[in-house]
């Protein structure tokens, strides 16, 4: 019985009509009279004229202008009819285009005035690690070569018992001593690995072996002044740039989560 009904042309026809009705009902084509008003005002005509002038380097004749206006009207009519038919839906180009526009509008909103010192200071206080001045080291080092830990420990033992460092120093074009050097300055010359090990060394005595990309070193830290927070004046430009960049990123994120919170989102397979 059901199978027979499905093959019935009249049912096809009625079903189709129902679908069309449902479409217009669902897309809310409850005709707003304003939708059928097209007015080309002075600004539109000025814009059309200006476009023409840029191209032809002269004003359009009346006939040419009428042509442009008619074209504008035709375009607008087809545009609106297309919207009525829902042709803007499920179009990947339009979808991507509107996405880009929204992102633009949101990033526009983040452009604002120069931050005050108080704002920058607060930003610094919130990110103490980022602007902390590294501890400063005074240290001497000798390069022991590409030798193993046992041999290095033996040399360091002799150094602590008073042997002269130059007996063991292998030549390498790195400073034998640095004063008030920051972590970054040390890393620049000796590499990150070396710089990271200084923190743990006991001041005043030869210690190590401290390894670097070059090999191993014996190091005597003679002074260490602890790291501290930077003053705004010293790092103002960087702080201001970071503040701007972070603020833009944050506002973008905020805008998205504001929209997102209004949606109920479910993904198959995702809890």
């Amino acid at each position, binding site marked *: 019985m059901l199978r027979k009904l499905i093959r019935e042309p009249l049912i096809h026809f009625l079903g189709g009509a129902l679908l069309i009705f449902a479409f217009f009902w669902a897309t809310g084509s409850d005709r707003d009279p304003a939708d059928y008003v097209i007015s080309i005002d002075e600004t539109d005509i000025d814009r059309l004229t200006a*476009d*023409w002038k*840029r*191209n032809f380097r002269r004003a359009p004749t009346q006939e040419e202008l009428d042509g442009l206006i008619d074209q504008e009207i035709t*375009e607008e009519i087809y545009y609106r009819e297309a919207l009525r038919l829902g042709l803007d839906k499920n179009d*990947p*180009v*339009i979808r*991507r*285009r509107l996405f*880009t*526009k929204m992102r*633009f509008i949101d990033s*526009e909103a983040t*452009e604002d*005035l*120069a*931050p005050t010192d108080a704002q920058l200071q607060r930003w610094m206080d919130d990110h103490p690690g980022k602007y902390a001045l590294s501890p400063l080291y005074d240290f001497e080092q000798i*390069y022991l070569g*590409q030798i193993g830990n046992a041999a290095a420990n033996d040399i360091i033992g002799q150094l602590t018992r008073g042997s002269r460092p130059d007996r063991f120093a292998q*030549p*390498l*074009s*790195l400073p034998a001593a640095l004063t008030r050097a920051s972590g970054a300055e040390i*890393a*620049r010359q*000796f*590499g*990150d*690995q*070396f710089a990271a090990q200084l923190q743990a060394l006991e001041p005043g005595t030869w210690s190590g072996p401290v390894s*670097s*990309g*070059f*090999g191993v070193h014996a190091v005597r830290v003679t002074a260490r002044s602890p790291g501290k927070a930077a003053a705004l004046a010293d790092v103002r*430009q*960087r702080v*201001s*740039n970071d503040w*701007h*960049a972070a603020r833009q990123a944050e506002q973008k994120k905020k805008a998205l989560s504001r929209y997102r919170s209004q949606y109920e989102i479910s993904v198959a397979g995702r809890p």
Partner: protein
Amino acid sequence: MRKSLMVAACMAALTIAGCSENTGGDDSSADVVNTEYPEQVFWGDTHLHTDNSIDAFGFGNRLDAEAALRFARGEEVTATKGAKAKLSRPLDFLVIADHSDAMGATKAIMEAPRIALLTNDFLLRWHDMMNESDEGSLRVTSELIDGAAKGTLPSSLTDPEQSRERTADLWTKHGKTVDQYNEPGKFTAFMGFEYTPMPDGDNLHRVVMFRDGPKKMGDTLPYGALGSQDPEKLWGYMGAYEKNTGGKVLAIPHNSNVSNGRMFAMNKYDGSPIDAAYVKTRALREPIVEVTQIKGDSEAHPFLSPNDEFAGFGDAGWDKCNLSCTKNMPPESYAGSYVREALKRGLELTLAIGANPFKFGMIGSTDSHTSLATADENNFFGKHSGNEPTNSQRALEPQNLGTREGRFGWHYLSSGYAAVWATSNTREAIFDAMMRREVYATTGPRMQVRFFGSFDFTAEDTADLVKTGYGKGVPMGGDLSGGDGEAPKFLISALMDPESASLDRIQVIKGWIDASGKSQEKIYNVSWSDADTRKLGADGKLTPVPNSVDLAKGTWDNATGAPELVTFWQDPDFNAAQNAFYYVRVLEIPTPTWPVYDALKFSLTLPKEVIKIQQERAYSSPIWYTPSA
């Protein structure tokens, strides 16, 4: 109609984009103290593309100049395809060098209101392709590069007059960002652009960089190759800039390897033989050359230097056809494509004309189109956003760009950086060091290379090499003359990069003009690791350094090389009557290439032809010897 639509579209896109105000730096570096002589080497990239380059954007890059600057100075950023990106060590300076032609245009086409393009089929098609998918965007870029090579791009893209307004807006905004991130003494951000002439697909590209900030540059706009493909026109633009503003600007040729013999040709753009005026202008405008970068290495080629067993580095994939791969390059063209040969031609021209158009210092740079200046093998973000590290197949994918012949991802080098011996980290000091060529190139590792020449050095002078070097001699990039017939002497040192590999050897490469007027070259091994076991053969060749690379782990053993090499060297084959140059090549021990790290990360099996082990290197600027008149 087509032309005006493009302009309208671009303007419309721009009105949406606001401008951020400038809170930071200006033109002044007055507070920074310069050292007496260059004590420190500064590392940078002079050749980086952001989303303002038409091809970079087309390849999908969505990172702007600000992201590029933040990344270069050591911040973490998120790459276009989502990977977190951070340099192992910050750079000291950066030149953002976006293509001047149609700067910002792909961005504008994509972001333009579609209705503004409706009657322009050409641009509309691109607009839709770009908006539809990443693949579409890639196809547009291929068509763009192809169209530029064949000269078939629409005039709305190629006519500088039509894009003037858009460029001026964009350039002003760019200048603000660059100034904002220029921190004299800490990080230097340069103004610059890339001039991109490509006649028949032959690469004649130059990076143009300014010593000055936007304030002094005034209303100077980037010069486009679509205006003229003749580099002499660019030099004219540079001359006019210096005259009008009192500023300074230099140009850096690059990718001579895909110029089909035209970058260092013995004739002008129009085919006529080069003359004194050309030679003098070029010498003035182009003091340095970019010798190594992602699209291959241009130092030397085995065809030109059959006795150099290291000449083939970075040549694979780049020596068969020109940039667009629309023309094959016969080996006979190589002499105009590789820098060593250009240096030799320069000597010949010195004799013939009395000036040297190819008196180049050497730097490396990335030419990255991802806004990310990476050159480390284990942290390589690719040539363009289509081959960022999230793409597991990037090493093996063809990179045809819509042309007919195969280049593959693995042909790209994770290279290189510019090393500059300057007296401070400022626009002025770095630019001036480039003008005097006190610079060198590396393929990525940051080894420290010193090279001094003099007639007065002694072997003992290596003890205090830098001080004696400056005191009694000239540094790399300098000139020697006179000497009363005595052979020039050199102090050379190379310190390994503590974050990279130890050193195999230092070589001196000499070029000279023989008695018959022909240029010659010879390579001297002058210092090497394990000198007690590795000996020179009768042919001057050295036992190769052991290969310690473990491909299954991506590691190597630094104990197989030297942490530092220092030497005094005097030319044993010197003839005081013959013009000559000397430059230094430093080789690291063998290490894995970037595809090896990809293979480990993604469990790939790399085909046999993929180069997996290489010796990274540094090239110093030469020191030239000229007989006294």
